[in-house]
């Protein structure tokens, strides 16, 4: 069993999951909204990248900047039009709303890009030799950017004034309001940031994986599994769990085949929900 190869493959995948899950977690932490449409933002990110690079011949690095702005805008619209109105309602309502939005977005994606798969050949292709292993450049870049951004956002949350405002809104909204923080502003920017992170994950994914409008659903479950294992509301938990689950998925896939391998993640998520619902480091999920 090529342990090192699998391990590295798992970690590289985990980096992407971290970016996805951190965005999802950020939104949950601040607004107690479980964004069912997060996967679609990823898919739209990936497909937009394909259009931008393969279709309009923009350089790949520009997609890293432009596409997250697009998904952030979509996220902002989602929040202002729909989620803001559901601010006081029980979580299930915003879940239903984001579920509905996700189907609208999937439809939109199918209309824009068709239902088939698109790849991005020639971008970040080739491989380098690291520690005696042949690693594909696209995966390396994806890992570096994904993990880098996730850690950067964590730094922002811990060290900057905006980050403190975000944390105080997620922990004690009433107190935050009294101390002059505009909750609406924080929620808007947080949702936009989370959406941007999903979009960025899509950009990074485009050269490595084949993108199609159904990409969102597949990744959403994995992102949920990551946050639940890591603990909903815990940012470092999401990063750690993402890397862990990436590795588990790759190892699992080696033994049982890719299809059942991804089912493993979900089963792990279920197991965690039932046995230790707080996950590694987070807030509870039990009744």
């Amino acid at each position, binding site marked *: 069993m090529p342990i090192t190869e699998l391990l590295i493959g798992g970690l590289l995948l985990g980096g992407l999951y971290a970016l996805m899950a951190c965005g999802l977690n950020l939104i949950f932490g601040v607004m107690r909204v479980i964004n069912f449409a997060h996967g679609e933002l990823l898919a739209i990110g990936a497909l937009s990248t394909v259009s931008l690079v393969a279709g309009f011949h923009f350089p790949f690095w520009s997609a890293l900047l432009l596409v997250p702005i697009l998904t952030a805008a979509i996220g902002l619209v989602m929040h202002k039009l729909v989620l803001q109105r559901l601010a006081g309602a029980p979580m*299930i309502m915003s879940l239903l709303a984001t579920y509905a939005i996700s189907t609208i977005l*999937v439809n939109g994606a199918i209309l824009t890009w068709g239902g088939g798969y698109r790849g991005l050949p020639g971008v970040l292709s080739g491989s380098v030799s690291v520690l005696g292993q042949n690693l594909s450049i696209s995966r390396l870049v994806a890992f570096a950017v994904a993990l880098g951004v996730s850690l950067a956002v964590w730094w922002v949350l811990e060290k900057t004034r905006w980050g403190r405002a975000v944390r105080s809104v997620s922990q004690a909204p009433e107190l935050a309001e009294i101390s002059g923080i505009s909750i609406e502003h924080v929620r808007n920017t947080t949702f936009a940031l989370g959406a941007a992170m999903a979009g960025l994950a899509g950009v990074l994914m485009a050269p490595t994986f084949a993108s199609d409008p159904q990409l969102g*659903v597949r990744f959403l479950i994995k992102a949920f599994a990551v946050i639940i294992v890591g603990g909903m509301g815990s940012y470092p938990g999401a990063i750690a769990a993402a890397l862990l689950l990436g590795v588990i998925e790759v190892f699992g896939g080696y033994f049982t085949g890719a*299809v059942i391998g991804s089912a493993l993640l979900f089963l792990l998520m279920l197991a965690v*929900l*039932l046995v230790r619902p707080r996950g590694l480091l987070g807030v509870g*999920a039990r*009744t």
Partner: protein
Amino acid sequence: MMKPIALAVVLGLAALAVPYFGTEYALSFTMQLLVFMILAYSWNLIGGYTGYTHFGQVCFFGLGGYVGALLIQNAGMRWYFAVPVAALAGAALALPLGTAMLRLKGPYFAIGMFGLTRVLESLVLGFDSVTKGGTGLYLVPLDNLRPVYYALVGLAIVMIVGTWRLDNSRLGLKLLAIREDEQAADSLGVRTTRLKIGTFVVSAIAPAAVGALNAVYLGFIDPPTAFSPVMELTTIAIVLLGGMGTVLGPLVGAIVLSVVNELLWARFPEYYLAIVGTLLLLAVLYMPRGIVNLGMKRGWLPAGRSLFRQLAREGGRGRPPVAAPLVPDEAKRAEA
């Protein structure tokens, strides 16, 4: 009391008459309507009454479909035996699943069920030596599909009547209590765990049966049809739009959405998801309790759960004075 029964009889007869007097088109429309109705009524039990909304209804539909299809194909079972077995399979899965999953809070339960559906789909795709995976399973078509149709009509009637009986019973009230405030209900002695799990199991039976019936009718089943997210979305939209926790809600919703479905597939099939998604979104934002509940509140429709009001009225006429003590017997106290 008479009006709902009369209505039910009329609708039932109309449904039964379709194969004889209706066109092919009318038949297939009614079939789809019936399938959606049965799924919706089932989801209404666990989502509408008990308040445990979830995105995994279709996993029982798919499970029932595959169990039924495999029994018919590989074991040579007749469809009218295979369907009840498929229904039992649904219940058998729901029991341990419900016991485990219903301990989770609302949104986590919803997502958990969604994930489970995807997992089941993956497993079906993965074990393709048995299930033929993505290619799908073909069944020998039946000569006469009418009995299948009648089975669907029968199932739909059972679901509607069952929901009506539930609505007018203390059991129904207990489920609503769980929905409204589970902790308070539990503190007041309602056996919430038992009731939740029981309802979940019951809500899995009909979808599993319909899944099998659907496979028989189409003569075919594959993962996208069996675990169709579109079907899930439509079922939820039906109950939300129609009215959660009511007798007529799923019926109204099913009719509205079947019509929408027909119109869309005829003219704008590529906008189906977006339109149904938008309808669901509008319902969530502006009418979360659905058309029927709105109608009841505004007085257009008679308010549901009439049994208790009726008993109260009956009790009010010529009642003997309050004889029973409100607290446990004085006699017991005297013992102390």
